[in-house]
């Protein structure tokens, strides 16, 4: 249980994680590459668009220039090796390096996702604990009803509903985009940006609350039925003390983990939400790249989202180690 042992355990854990990440990265890149090769979208056609002035000869030249005439295995290897050296290629639709496009879009998405993540986590957890403590009471029924409705609500539909209610009818927030239209970039204020963030964040978090809330409720009920809560009662602790010193800690662990594991759903939800609100983030870029055959960008986004979700999972495990003494010890051994 001393410090050095703990550090050893952590090093082993992180090394294992890194190895898994590399193998996963290779596998996912390969699968994405094969899928793109098999897709009916021809990158050259997607590039030149409906421009009929580009003849067959010129098309071939473009294909040759991009190396499309070479065998697929060679194409993959050359793409993958340049990926490792930091050259992620050129985005066809944005005509800029993929990394710079992703960097810009990811930051915009990150604001939406981070806000939605924190908001849904805090609200979902609080509602879940409340619901579990009031098991069977009216409060519990209301919260559960709310969650069930939300779980069966499609993200895009809720987004459209919010646009109608808050943007069109009430006019509280802008309908779409991340900045006002017709305003110079340097004249955009922080308030402008924030007000454009509100509806996408709200949509994304309202959807995500349901999952964390239901999960927290189940755990709360389970803890309240545990032997150690029974013993706490036998020792004269009242309900408030029991919730504070036993329920919160024992429930927050799985809740935090779940919240980090939900990175993939968060990312998936962001794709829908950004589409509904025309919010220029990574999700929208992914849709555009897919529809318009921007292979380098789509591959780049795939890898970035993989890293994103994987980071979430690793963070969940690390936190578990930090908070739960039983797990910390298992790795130290």
């Amino acid at each position, binding site marked *: 249980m001393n410090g050095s042992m703990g550090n050893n355990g952590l090093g082993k854990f992180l090394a294992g994680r890194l190895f898994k990440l590399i193998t996963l990265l290779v596998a996912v890149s390969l699968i994405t590459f094969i899928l793109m090769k098999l897709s009916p979208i021809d990158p050259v056609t997607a590039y030149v668009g409906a421009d009929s002035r580009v003849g067959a000869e010129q098309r071939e030249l473009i294909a040759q220039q991009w190396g499309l005439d070479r065998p697929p295995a060679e194409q993959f290897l050359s793409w993958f090796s340049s990926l490792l050296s930091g050259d992620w290629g050129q985005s066809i639709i944005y005509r800029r390096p993929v990394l710079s496009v992703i960097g810009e879009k990811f930051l915009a998405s990150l604001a939406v996702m981070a806000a939605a993540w924190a908001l849904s986590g805090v609200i979902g957890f609080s509602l879940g604990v409340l619901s579990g403590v009031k098991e069977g009471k009216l409060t519990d029924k209301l919260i559960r009803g709310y969650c069930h409705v939300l779980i069966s609500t499609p993200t895009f539909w809720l987004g459209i509903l919010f646009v109608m209610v808050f943007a069109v009818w009430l006019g509280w927030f802008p309908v779409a985009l991340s900045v006002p239209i017709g305003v110079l970039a340097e004249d955009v204020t922080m308030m402008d940006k924030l007000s454009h963030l509100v509806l996408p964040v709200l949509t994304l978090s309202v959807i995500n609350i349901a999952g964390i809330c239901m999960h927290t409720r189940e755990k709360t009920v389970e803890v309240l039925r545990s032997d*150690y809560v*029974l*013993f706490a009662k036998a020792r004269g602790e009242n309900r408030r003390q029991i919730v504070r010193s036993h329920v919160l800690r024992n429930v927050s662990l799985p809740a935090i983990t779940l919240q980090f594991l939900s990175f993939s759903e968060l990312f998936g939800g962001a794709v829908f939400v950004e589409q509904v609100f025309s919010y220029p983030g990574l999700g929208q870029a992914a849709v555009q790249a897919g529809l318009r055959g921007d292979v380098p960008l789509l591959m780049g986004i795939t890898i970035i989202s993989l890293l994103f979700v994987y980071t979430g999972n690793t963070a969940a495990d690390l936190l578990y180690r930090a908070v739960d003494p*039983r797990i910390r010890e298992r790795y130290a051994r």
Partner: protein
Amino acid sequence: MKDEEYLLKVENLGVSFSQYTQGLKKTRLQVITDLCVELRAGEILAVVGSSGSGKSLLAHAVLGILPENAEETGSIFFEGRKLSQRDKEALRGKEIALIPQSVNFLDPLQKVGDQILSGTGGTSGPGQKRRRRTEQAEALLARYGLEPGVARYFPHQLSGGMARKVLLQTALAADCRAIIADEPTPGLDPDSLAEVLRDFRAAAAEGRGILMITHDINAALQIADRIAIFYAGTTFEIAASSDFAGDGAALRHPYTRALLQALPDRGFTPIPGSQPLPGELPEGCLFCGRCPQQTEECAGRRPMFRDLRGGKVRCIHAT
């Protein structure tokens, strides 16, 4: 002996559960019937019975922590006062303490020191007070031969013997008058067992009354002053430990004698049959069907719990 002289007195306790059987049909399941037991200050009373005899439920009823679908009848007195549910809530952890069965009754994520003192406020809180409480926990640990560092352990780091001591200390920290220990002995090696029993004796010597629930009649004989025999949710006999000496001629109830004769060093002869399940209890005496002294009268009605030769018995044939 008058009521006030008992620390804890349980009179005709009945516990039943409502259950849904076959879809929506609700039935009552009688688990404890006419249970009577008394605990005096300074004594160790062992409650012995096989599993399913209602031992743990007795503890839960006294502390008012029965599950919600349970219904309780009869009366429980503490120092001569009949307890309501609210009284139990006020007394538990302060005057009456529970020593639970296993380390599973400790919060897995809370340090042992905090849990020992939990009933008295815990070691959390600001600076000086916190330090004083930590010292208090360590002092308590030291008194029972544990290192002060154990206060910083989590429950899963305790060995079986350490866990028993820690569980005992959760009760001693609160300075309770009555302690109910639920199965404190299983899984202990002979040395640890002797140590735990010594700790119990020491706690009783300080004037506490200890109700030890166990299925281990040997452990009970080693330590208890008196032994209450449970069967199918009721008390068959209360006898002094000395009554169990030899072939048990001083015992009053045929079941108690059968129990003694089933021990490895006392003949090792079991009696046929098994304890009836709740819901399948016989009309008359609950021992009907297994009793060697059974007569027609036994099957007709349940015998009263009566005083006999300094103990108590629930059998019409006992003399």
